[in-house]
């Protein structure tokens, strides 16, 4: 089972990101589950969502406590104590940041991949919504699901200009990733 914890702020499409990833996996024939851990729901507040993907049906309903991967949509959340808590020893952190990874401690440096997702979103959507760019990069890094599965799950949720701009955005985000250091298979 692969478990992902997505951190963001209310308004960044955190829950939508979790739903899109699980939908992409389900459309590829896998079993998946996505759910939020809401706090008081309001714009700007830290929020968390969870995704599980497996080759067999998923029964458990508990929160993800030891994720394989973290996707962090707002760099400032890295300052919150415990944000990386429970991350598996060989796990990875995908962080929305336009800095370089030298800004972070050695302890997490090796696990960290940075993507300037807000910048990319501004370019392609005209809005600072980083979620789909991060998902696209995540699929490249892990080679977990084809990009086409993400496009398909976007098509189920969006249409028209929003859909087209998001497709352009995820293509641009995928191009920034040249390697798949977090290669995973769902049967593993």
């Amino acid at each position: 089972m692969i478990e992902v914890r997505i951190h963001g702020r209310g308004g960044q499409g955190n829950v939508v990101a979790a739903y899109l990833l699980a939908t992409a996996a389900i459309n590829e024939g896998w079993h998946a589950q996505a759910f939020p851990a809401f706090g008081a729901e309001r714009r700007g507040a830290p929020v968390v969502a969870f995704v599980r993907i497996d080759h067999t049906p998923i029964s458990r309903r508990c929160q993800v406590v030891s994720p394989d991967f973290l996707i962090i949509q707002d760099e400032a959340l890295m300052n919150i104590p415990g944000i990386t808590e429970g991350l598996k020893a060989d796990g990875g952190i995908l962080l929305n940041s336009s800095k370089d990874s030298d800004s972070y401690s050695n302890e997490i440096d090796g696990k960290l991949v940075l993507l300037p997702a807000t910048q990319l979103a501004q370019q392609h959507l005209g809005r600072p919504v980083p979620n789909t760019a991060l998902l696209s990069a995540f699929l490249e890094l892990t080679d977990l699901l084809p990009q086409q599965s993400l496009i398909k799950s976007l098509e189920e949720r969006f249409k028209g200009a929003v859909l087209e701009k998001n497709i352009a955005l995820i293509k641009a985000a995928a191009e920034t990733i040249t390697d798949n250091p977090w290669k995973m298979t769902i049967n593993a």
Partner: protein
Amino acid sequence: MRKALEGSQAIALTVALCRPQVVAAYPITPQTHIVENIAKLVADGKMDCELVSVESEFSAASLVLGAACAGSRTYTASASQGILLMSEVLYNIAGLRIPMVMTCANRALSAPLSIWNDQQDSMAVRDAGWIQLYCANNQEAVDTTIQAYRIAEATELPVMVCMDGFTLTHTLEPIDIPEQAMVDAYLPPFNFARALDPANPISIGTLVSPDHYPEARHSHHHALLDAADEIIAADADWQQLSGRSAGGLLSVSGPDDARIGILTLGSIVGTLSDASDLYTDLPATKLINLRAFRPFPVDALRFACSGLTDLIVLERALSPGFGGIVAAEVHAALAGMQDVPRIHSFAVGLGGRDIPLEIYRTLHRKIDAAEPGPFSIIDVERDRLPVEDHGI
């Protein structure tokens, strides 16, 4: 068709398949997405029903009561404080023996204010006279909603379909939404024998004097007891059509010869089931998932508990000043049985507290003692209690 759906979205699609003629609901977290999705289906012309905006849950329940009296198939949904505000009408709907279906997106009650999941809301209307069915996952919630219409209309009793708020309503997972033709074949159009008809006037809801009140209660009580057969039949027939059972009165998993049992309601069972696969060092355990809470399935429970030395009742509500609500009923149901198991009573996950896999180990540790201790809330963190309560 198997699709990636949020629980609420799946329920809205399923309600549409059941072809209600009148829907009225007032939004409340975590039920809101169900009503929003129904409103969207109606606005998009994909659902042909009268959707009435109301100003409160009291009005929502009153409106569907009136519409059902006029012979309409109806639907409403609520949670938490909304259920409490409806409660006067809920008793009326059941006492008048009006068939209808509602979803309770289970949520804690105030105070303290909590928007998160437990089952105190539906437990608070336990005695309203509704059938109550609890769902373990979103597929069961879909299948149970369809079955609920058939049960309600066959028994002339209202059915409350209880699904854990957030844990199910806000979880996206693969869900099979049946074809319209399958639901149509299973659920014929509603034909209410006592529908109000100006050509043939009757009164519904009149004053009943002491000459007849006890008889009305007797009939209602027995109608609920007898509904057990219809709940079983509705599930068996649905299984024949769809290939899936939603759990009958209760469902049992785990080895037959297990000496320890855990009884729960709702979505906890999935976590316990995964935990029992993981923690193989712990004794074999039978998981009993109580789907029908009203009517209470005494015989099925006795059968499921035969051979157990210990039964843990794990519930997500309590009766303050007494303890476990379900546990008290389990005690009563098993009393007089040969070799009654020792019953251990715990509440867990109140107000949305996460229920981790490790709860399974904690439960096994708790029952090592010679005699069951008193009821407790098993996941209380002592250091979070007010200082003056540290000793209790």
